[in-house]
């Protein structure tokens, strides 16, 4: 099985990419959202916990503190908070503990100006920290709250939390990574199931185009593609029906032509026989009767030629025309053709003295006689016949010095009953001569082409295989 290049492969690729993108983006978005939510929850939890702990400790110790505080009070408060902590009052700070330098200014400002716990995350030396700051507020017995001017700061290590978050992110990425090959496989399967009917249809269309009108695709399921397949099948069916009808009509027409010419042969045999008798007796007739007799004789000969040509064409159509090749001298055949018709003085022959080849002498005689006859009738002299050959091709060229073939005629000269102009209708030919000539050339495995010489004038070129072969014998038709 071969996948067509280009478009078809493109369709599969596009389906694949689109499917994978959608799947992976979906999975990634879900994983990322989950990770972000979890991270926020974790951070909020640790923030809340730190704030509660520190707030509680500060509140517990606050009533026992002397205000305004001295260095000892600050240190005691710092110890009460525990861990990495710092207590600041105006320009004084507690000894040891947290370095005031790590505290961002905005955090200091928020704590100093406010009356509640403020948190901020910072990264110092590659480690994430949660900084918690709270002003110490004293509550008088009457309930009035006054800021004491003391600020308490504490730092909580967030490394553990960060690890948890990292773990979550990694798992999200891993999930997306696992989904990717799965998505590709699914996409391939989907593409295949969609594309197989398409491919079947394409194969069917190709066979139809190649002339196999019996080609059909089996419709699968009941989707749009199955609809399309049914439509294509219906179309092929009607094309097949009309083609068969046309072929039948054409065969009938050809058989009719063959039958008619066959039936005409018997009366023509009588006419041909008696015309000669009549011909010998015209001297005894008066002028009008003689002219009538002469017309009848001439027209009988024309009719015979026409019927013979029709029958010859019918044999080509029916495939019963037989090639009888013999060793022959192409030059001699051409000269003999001209001599037998009395054309030797009107035609120049350019040919080697002898040109041995193998062909059907009588068919080539018919072709050459037809071409030279046309040249003498329609062209102007000198009419020239050129014969030459290579190792495997024999070439016979007939040209004249007439006006040549008009462009719109060249394509039709081999058509049956084609007459280039009305004046030629009565030229005596059957209108089948060139069609038969070309069929004869093709029967040899050669061809006959029409064109014009550079110097004007029509030129017909007959090419034949130098050693024509008879086709393998077929069963004899009756």
């Amino acid at each position, binding site marked *: 099985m071969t996948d067509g290049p280009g478009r078809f492969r493109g369709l599969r690729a596009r389906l694949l990419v689109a499917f994978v993108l959608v799947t992976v983006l979906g999975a990634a978005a879900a994983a990322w959202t989950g990770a972000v939510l979890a991270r926020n929850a974790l951070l909020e939890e640790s923030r809340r916990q730190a704030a509660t702990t520190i707030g509680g400790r500060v509140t517990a110790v606050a009533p026992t503190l002397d205000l305004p505080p001295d260095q000892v009070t600050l240190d005691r408060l710092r110890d009460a908070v525990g861990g990495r902590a710092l207590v600041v009052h105006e320009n004084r700070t507690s000894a040891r503990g947290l370095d005031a330098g790590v505290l961002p200014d905005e955090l200091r400002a928020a704590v100093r100006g406010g009356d509640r716990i403020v948190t901020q995350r910072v990264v110092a030396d590659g480690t994430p920290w949660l900084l918690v700051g709270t002003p110490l507020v004293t509550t008088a017995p009457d309930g009035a709250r006054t800021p004491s001017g003391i600020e308490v700061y504490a730092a909580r290590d967030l490394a553990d939390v960060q690890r948890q978050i990292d773990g979550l992110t990694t798992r999200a990425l891993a999930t997306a990574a696992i989904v990717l090959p799965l998505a590709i496989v699914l996409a391939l399967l989907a593409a295949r199931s969609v594309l197989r009917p398409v491919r079947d249809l394409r194969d069917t269309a190709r066979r139809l185009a190649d002339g196999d009108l019996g080609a059909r695709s089996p419709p699968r399921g009941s989707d749009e593609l199955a609809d399309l397949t049914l439509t294509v099948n219906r179309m092929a069916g009607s094309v097949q029906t009309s083609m068969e009808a046309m072929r039948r009509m054409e065969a009938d027409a050809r058989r009719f032509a063959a039958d008619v010419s066959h039936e005409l042969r018997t009366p023509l045999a009588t006419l041909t026989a008696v015309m000669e008798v009549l011909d010998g007796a015209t001297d005894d007739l008066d002028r009008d009767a003689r002219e009538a007799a002469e017309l009848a004789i001439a027209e009988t000969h024309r009719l015979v030629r026409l019927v013979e040509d029709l029958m010859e064409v019918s044999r080509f159509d029916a495939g019963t025309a037989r090639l009888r090749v013999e*060793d022959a001298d192409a030059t001699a055949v051409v000269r003999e053709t001209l001599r037998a018709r009395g054309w030797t003085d009107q035609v120049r022959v350019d040919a080697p003295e002898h040109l041995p080849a193998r062909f059907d002498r009588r068919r080539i005689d018919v072709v050459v006689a037809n071409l030279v006859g046309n040249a003498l009738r329609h062209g102007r002299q000198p009419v020239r016949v050129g014969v030459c050959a290579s190792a495997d091709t024999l070439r016979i060229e007939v040209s004249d010095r007439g006006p040549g073939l008009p462009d719109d005629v060249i394509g039709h000269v081999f058509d049956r009953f084609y007459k280039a102009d009305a004046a030629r209708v009565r030229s005596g030919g059957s209108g089948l001569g060139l069609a038969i000539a070309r069929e004869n050339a093709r029967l040899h495995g050669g061809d006959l082409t029409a064109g014009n010489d550079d110097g004007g004038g029509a030129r017909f070129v007959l090419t034949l295989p130098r050693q024509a072969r008879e086709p393998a014998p077929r069963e004899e038709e009756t």
Partner: protein
Amino acid sequence: MASVLLIEDDPSVRRGLQLALSRHGHDARTAGSGEDGLREFRTHPPDLVVLDLMLPGMDGFAVCRRLREAGEVPVIMLTARGDDADVVGGLEAGADDYVVKPVQPAVLDARIRAVLRRGTSAPDGVRVYRDLRIDTAALTVTLAGEPVALTPTELRLLLTLSRSPGRVLSRQQLLEEVWEHGYLGDSRLVDNGVQRLRAKVEENPAAPEYVQTVRGFGYRFGPV
């Protein structure tokens, strides 16, 4: 001049050809079927038979074979153009020559005269080659003392070939000399005539002694 028996089923063609042949000086008798033709042939033996191959009842091939069995009368058959099966079958049945319908009487007349001329020759004595003895004056042939009955065509073919033993004659030359056909004559006539001649004079027609084939050129007599 010559008495011709024309066997043709179509009455108009039959009458037309009879009229035309009469004008060419022949005494033309006619028959409308093979059976009538054979009867006529026995009661009034003609010099030559012109035989249409398409006959109702007994067909032309069968009639031709019967005529051959009865003697050496020359037969010219009327065939349809391009009907190769007819030509081949007619020659195998023993016809000497053929013309294509519709035939011009002048052409048929020329063929008739050519066939009849084959029964004559310019005598140049007796030619003897091994067992084969050809008397060119009496126009008789004997093989090991036994007379061989040859049709005029077979006789003319043998005379032509034996005139210069060892010399190759092309089919073309034989067609012109024996059949008096033009350049486009049918070389199957020659091949068929040679076959029939061999059947009569050769001991083993498959390995001929007298009439030998020269591949790609033609035929020659001997060397014996």
